């Protein structure tokens, strides 16, 4: 079971925070296929946000094929996301790249800006 934390000052839409936190939990293996997401009632009781916001987030997750709603039972995880971050070969390559960037004299902010611009270039239009 995941527990959502809503940051009202983050500037990120509330439903997106739920979507992102669910995906994060999927990536981290905290949620696995078959697991039930908390009901809208449970989420809003602990976060004091509007129930429709939770439903909107769940619909978004459903649209992406990550969860499915079973009438009268709840919303269940269908798929998992990515692979475990620790043992991914991609991570190894990124680590390698970061080491080389540092050696080349780039500081943290330079690397972050560079990474963000590449992300933007390749994932343009993919929201959340």
């Amino acid at each position, binding site marked *: 079971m995941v527990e959502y934390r809503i940051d*009202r000052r983050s500037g990120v839409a509330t439903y997106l925070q739920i979507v992102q936190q669910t995906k994060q939990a999927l990536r981290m293996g905290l949620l696995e296929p078959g697991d039930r997401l908390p*009901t*809208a*009632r449970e989420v809003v009781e*602990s976060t*004091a946000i*509007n129930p429709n916001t939770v439903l909107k987030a769940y619909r978004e997750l459903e649209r992406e094929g990550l969860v499915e709603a079973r009438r009268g039972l709840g919303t269940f995880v269908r798929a998992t996301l990515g692979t475990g971050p620790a043992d991914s070969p991609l991570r190894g390559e990124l680590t390698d790249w970061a080491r080389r960037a540092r050696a080349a004299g780039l500081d943290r902010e330079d690397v972050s800006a560079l990474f963000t611009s590449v992300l933007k270039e390749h994932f343009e239009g993919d929201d959340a």
Partner: protein
Amino acid sequence: MTRDGIALEADLLGKTYGGRSRGWALRGCGFALPAGRVCALVGPNGAGKSTLLALAAGLLRPTEGTIQAPPREHLAYVAQDKPLHPRLSVADTLRMGRELNPGRWDETAAQRVMADELDPHTLVRDLSGGQRTRVALALALGKRAELLLLDEPMADLDPLARHQLMGLLMADAAEHGTTVVLSSHILTELEGACDHLLLLHGGKIRLDGAVDDLLAAHTLLRGPVADLAPHTVVESRTTGRQLTALIRHEGPIEGPWDTQEPSLEDLLLAHLRTTPEGVPA
């Protein structure tokens, strides 16, 4: 009786206390609140929020126009001053809720609000403001109403209780599809919890609609000074050569402007700053 799918509807609603010459607390108000919404009724002090809620609760008669709400059995109302009988105990007050709402009283819902925070034998007159609010909300939620009308419900609560009770209200709305109207002059109290907005100012309705629609219909833009037609300018400010404006856009925005979706607070402040006082409240 209300239309299908509409929990609360007003048409040309007006209310004046003690004669038309004495000024209108509310005038020309029209809106239709869909069932299942959590509606923020916002506006500065004296805007007419309490009058509107009391009219909706059937405690006042409109001076003109109409307001259609569910009958007394199906609505719950918590007045701003949280009136309770001072000499009844907390337990007696809840028992009163059961006695006066036979067949629909939900003790579990009421007890959830109480959350074992209060000794049931305490007399109401010995409660703090926040504790009174808790008892008043317990009465309202125990009634299992279709429409909850709450006048400044969170004003006396500490942040923890506010979060907990707002959570309970939202849970009630999630579980039963209850329509909730919450009034406040502090928006941050309601942001995130509400999906519908009624902005009242000077006795008139200035904004009415689903929060998402309202936000999507407005744009906050910054850039060189230029004519903003055909868009409706809600508020604009010029600093040197730079223009900052909140507009209600008509069609796509073309021009050298930096655009951004406004926050609910941007939207409210812009409307409050620019709407004329209209009728004195």
